[in-house]
């Protein structure tokens, strides 16, 4: 997130917002106060915002048939269980995506390949090596094939966002895409049994809008919750639950060991530890309620981490 953008970390409420506009709680984009849904991210605007007592803002699922405008193109979200992003591409506008999310396409839409740098590392990490481009005019529809929600992240010029790998559905052509190692790992076992685990994925995706506003569409495999961390504020989350974060948010491992129960061996007590991802503000973080579990084996090494022994 651009620190100077409306709603960005450290930016006072209302700063940079045109007169008469309101800022969407979910995508932080200013827009005129009209319509049932945010034109930038599709979030329902006629619902009361749901904030848990612990401070998480629940992202409402995008309503069936809601529309998102980006440039001269339009995205319609269709369905509720396994929602589809139906993109009406205007003129020469284009999007890119991984081939396995392509649901249907009109014959007139031009499909071509986009190669990505770092091919061998991406193959090893199980990431798509080749992306497809779809150029308008015409319709192309994408679906992640899993139950969940679609989350739209409009990016203002200069804005960046970090997203967890394999959550990306599509982005507009004017959003650049890079990927970088997460630097978050731990090992279990030793010798031939040594195994390296990447609870946040080996790589993370970084998207940047440059001269013009762009859009990134993610698939969240569960319900999605948002939180704006103040500077220095921390929260522990399951590593696999992180959906996206502002680049201003720091992240590292945190190992928490419970107080040993009477009669529990040292080794058993050690395996009861929890592997957390410790997030440090300022900035926004989003988590999804479906995540993979971390290993219960004894940790033999890890990336920089804080620990808590109760």
């Amino acid at each position: 997130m651009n620190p100077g953008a409306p709603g960005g970390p450290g930016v006072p409420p209302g700063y940079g917002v045109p007169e008469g506009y309101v800022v969407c709680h979910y995508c932080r984009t200013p827009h005129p106060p009209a319509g049932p849904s945010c034109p930038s991210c599709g979030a329902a605007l006629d619902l009361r915002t749901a904030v848990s007592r612990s401070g998480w803002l629940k992202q409402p699922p995008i309503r069936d048939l809601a529309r998102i405008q980006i440039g001269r193109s339009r995205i319609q979200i269709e369905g509720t269980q396994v929602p589809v992003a139906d993109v009406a591409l205007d003129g020469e506008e284009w999007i890119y995506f991984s081939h396995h999310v392509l649901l249907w396409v009109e014959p007139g839409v031009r499909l071509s390949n986009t190669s990505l740098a770092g091919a061998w590392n991406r193959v090893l990490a199980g990431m798509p090596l080749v992306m497809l481009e779809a150029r308008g005019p015409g319709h192309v529809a994408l679906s992640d094939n899993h139950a969940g929600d679609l989350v739209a992240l409009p990016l203002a010029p200069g804005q960046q966002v970090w997203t967890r790998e394999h959550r990306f559905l599509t982005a507009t052509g004017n959003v650049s895409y890079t990927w970088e190692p997460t630097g978050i790992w731990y090992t279990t076992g030793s010798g031939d049994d040594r195994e390296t685990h990447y609870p946040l994925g080996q790589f993370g995706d970084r998207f940047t809008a440059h001269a013009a506003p762009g859009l990134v569409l993610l698939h969240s495999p569960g319900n999605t919750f948002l939180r704006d961390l103040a500077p220095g504020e921390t929260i522990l989350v399951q590593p696999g639950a992180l959906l996206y974060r502002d680049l201003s948010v720091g992240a590292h491992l945190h190992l928490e060991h419970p107080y040993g129960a009477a009669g529990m061996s040292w080794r058993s007590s050690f395996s009861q530890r929890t592997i957390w991802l410790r997030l440090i503000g300022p900035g926004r973080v989003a988590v999804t309620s479906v995540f993979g579990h971390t290993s219960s084996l004894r940790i033999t090494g890890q990336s920089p981490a804080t620990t808590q022994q109760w």
Partner: protein
Amino acid sequence: MERVECRWCGLQNEPGAASCTTCGAPLDLRDLVTDSGWREAPRLRDLTEFRFSASVVQVEGELVPVADIALAQGDAVYFEHHVMLWKDERTPVSAMPTQGGMRRILGGMPFVLTLAHGPGRVAFSRDAPGELVVLPLHPGMELDAREHAFLLASHTIGYSFVRIQGLANVLHGGNGMYLDRFVTTSAPGLLVLHGYGDVFERRLAPGEKIMVEPGAFLYKDASVAMQAVQMPVKTGLLRRGLYLAEMTGPGRVGIQSMYVHHHAE
């Protein structure tokens, strides 16, 4: 008072009915049609009832819906045996052999379907998130469904299967080797499919085409031609090109938005 036409199956319903008596579609909701022309299959409300012949089907649940059927005397439904969720102990069942046994086994299709006879209750579920797609078939209709998609059909519907033509279609089509074909002759019938995820339908004009991910194909009128077409793109460093199913009208095409399940089978 005017009767209410069901926008999904076209049946005329009594005034004031909340759902269609033939397919269960809500009658008090507008038709949901996307900007690109796909119509959403109606989400059947929990505990909705609809009828075929003298039997009653009740839909139970919404995430992984169950079709719970009270079969009347003289009625029967057929199905793949593993989709039965529960049944009354006294509900009779019998085997329904299909033609082309060895070829079906080789194609991973059930060799024998099961018939449940009325009177009695029996319930079905495909044990995955999705929705029931209720397709009342009028006399003289032919409809093709992807293999392992059909939940049940009434005994008045003739069942056969058609082998997908062309090696490219078999190898790259993502639809397996066979399509289930359901045919009505002089009597109407009821066909219920399970669509994984959300289901959308489109009616293609003669010659109109749409390119569909093969795994997403759910059903089509027999009049719609289906052909695997290689797209001029690669899907990896050394991988083969991308294949899509080119559907050519006239007729209806149904697709589902979740299809990994099929690839995993």
